[in-house]
């Protein structure tokens, strides 16, 4: 065995454990928010990412802070995978002054630009143009960065899908479009709303590579993303990856989910579960021991509990925060 191979394997195990940790962080975080929401402590609309962890983590494991992502209304998973602070996130969801956005954004708008996380987004399809612009910016400023646009199967029918991808393609921008096809947009099935058989089929219309992967198979996502990110970094332009996945909870908290069948839920929450499967992969490939994973689980449990405590104990924003941060510079009554 050559040294380089050893090193590569060592690196992979470390990365693999990091990935496992992030996936468990997302799951634990979302399960926690779900529980807390039902007690009425959390205000507003909350869309949970649980079940789709393999997508955010499989993709973001190829990115660092100079790379950008755009996210969706279902953004917690992307935030965590991109390195956002759990305490700051939880406090934001509670509307606290210590939140990543000082409580002004909430669940649907968590952002951390310093980490390349350009915000969850309440507008379906809002991310396509933004990701393209971030890719353009990275290219013009020659940072070597790429931009990833996460979007849902519902968003795939919005006009911005078309405009964003076409633009990234003609300008050959370092952008990766990652479809999270979880089968539904709110209560509407993908098959009803989308005329394409798969979202990946649409890539051909932009002359870019498109592929469909099992979005609950972490390594399948990881490998597809690796190819796409490499292409982008090498100046070969955008790609589209469709990840077929499932959301464990409803569209938002409070959704009765009558559009789902109990069989599909059963199957997705158990045998197809991405974390269970990735756990098995790690163990059977000797990337980690049961003990390793157990201690990750425990640490995550603690980290999320800390985040909740932090959020609960944090103060609400002060009244003067209502009208700050609208502009960098603005004199309401004009100059002088």
């Amino acid at each position, binding site marked *: 065995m050559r040294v380089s191979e050893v090193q590569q394997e060592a690196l992979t195990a470390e990365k693999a454990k990091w990935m496992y940790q992030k996936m468990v962080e997302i799951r634990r975080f979302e399960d926690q928010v779900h529980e807390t929401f039902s007690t009425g402590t959390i205000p507003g609309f909350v869309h949970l990412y649980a079940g789709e962890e393999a997508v955010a983590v499989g993709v973001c494991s190829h990115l660092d802070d100079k790379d950008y992502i755009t996210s969706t209304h279902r953004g917690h998973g992307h935030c965590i995978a991109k390195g956002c602070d759990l305490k700051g996130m939880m406090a934001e969801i509670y509307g606290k002054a210590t*939140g990543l956005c000082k409580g002004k954004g909430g669940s649907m708008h968590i952002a951390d630009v310093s980490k390349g996380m350009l915000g969850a987004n309440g507008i379906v399809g809002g991310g396509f143009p933004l990701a393209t612009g971030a890719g353009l910016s990275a290219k013009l400023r020659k940072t070597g960065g790429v931009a990833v646009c996460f979007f849902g199967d519902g968003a795939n029918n919005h006009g911005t899908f078309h405009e964003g991808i076409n633009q990234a393609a003609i300008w050959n921008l370092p952008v990766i479009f990652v479809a999270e096809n979880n089968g539904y947009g709110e209560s509407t099935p993908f098959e009803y709303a989308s005329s394409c058989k798969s979202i990946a089929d649409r890539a051909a219309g932009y002359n870019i590579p498109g592929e469909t992967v099992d979005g609950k198979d972490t390594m399948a996502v990881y490998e597809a993303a690796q190819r796409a990110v490499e292409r982008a970094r090498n100046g070969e332009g955008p790609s589209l990856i469709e990840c077929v996945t499932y959301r464990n909870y409803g569209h938002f908290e409070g959704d009765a989910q*009558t559009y789902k069948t109990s069989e599909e839920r059963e199957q997705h929450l158990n045998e197809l579960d991405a974390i269970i499967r990735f756990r098995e992969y790690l163990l059977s490939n000797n990337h980690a021991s049961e003990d390793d994973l157990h201690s990750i689980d425990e640490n995550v449990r603690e980290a999320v509990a800390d985040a909740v405590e932090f959020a609960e104990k944090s103060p609400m924003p002060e009244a003067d925060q209502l009208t700050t941060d609208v502009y960098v510079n603005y004199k309401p009554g004009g100059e002088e």
Partner: protein
Amino acid sequence: MARQISFADAINEAIKETMRNDENVILLGEDVAGGADLDHLGDEDAWGGVMGVTKGLVQEFGRDRILDTPIAEAGYVGAAVSAAATGMRPIAELMFNDFIGSCLDEVMNQGAKLRYMFGGHAKIPLVIRTMHGAGFRAAAQHSQTLYGMFTAIPGVKVVVPSTPADAKGLLISAIEDDDMVVFFEDKTLYNVKGEVPEGHYTIPIGKADIKRAGDDLTIVAIGKQVNTALAAAEQLAQKGIEAEVVDPRSLSPLDENTILKSVQKTSRLVIVDEANPRCNAATDISALVADKGFDYLDAPIKMVTAPHSPVPFSPALEDLYLPTPEKILAVVSELIDDESVVTI
């Protein structure tokens, strides 16, 4: 007639009444039924709209007339425009008025202008129902109040009901109207109940309603802010000040006479509009009175609005964002020299 139903149910009834009378009325929008094409649901709806307002309609009218759409506002709002131009009477639901960002062209440049550009040789009997307003912890992109933007557009009528009974009668009028009407539903009103007549009835678009009579001061308030104004009026009455609360109910056309007559009687005007303060309906009404009612006025025209900032998520901030009875009392105290008016 003491039947009390919610604002949401009143809207549901209005749609039902008109759909029963006219098979050209259809409803389209995202998840207005929900669960399209799912065998295990059949004709059952999965959602009936994100807030359940259109629940049950698909069972009665079928999926040909209650159409779930892709998330493509330009697509289906534009389709509704030409369906209207070619003989249908569509009701298009724009889930949140904030999403007008995705389909303004279809409203402003197509729906509102076709008739004029065609020299009158077309009509657009289209209703766009849309949800607006803050107070729901829905943050900056789901809480705006944008009726001012539509009021500015010639070719659009704008309706903003404040009670269940008004909502039903005005929505029936809107659906039966031959012009494009944008119908604003405040999401925090849906569960509010009130007396609502059974069956088919209409309330004319363009007729304000005096929700409380008074001689000392006029408060024009829009949508759910009528309730804020009524609460303030209640407190003012305890100080012996009788406020008249005028609910315009539609902003385009605007019932100018009712407002001007009220100001003629009271000589003082406060306008309550929860939209951001610039170029909004409050400034529009103020400018009307500063022109045509100037001679009636004994004091400056005051406006109570949201500040010039997006809607914050944090409940602590959002509660400061909206107009309150206290904010109304504070400006009234500037109009009427009586310190005791301000209770807080």
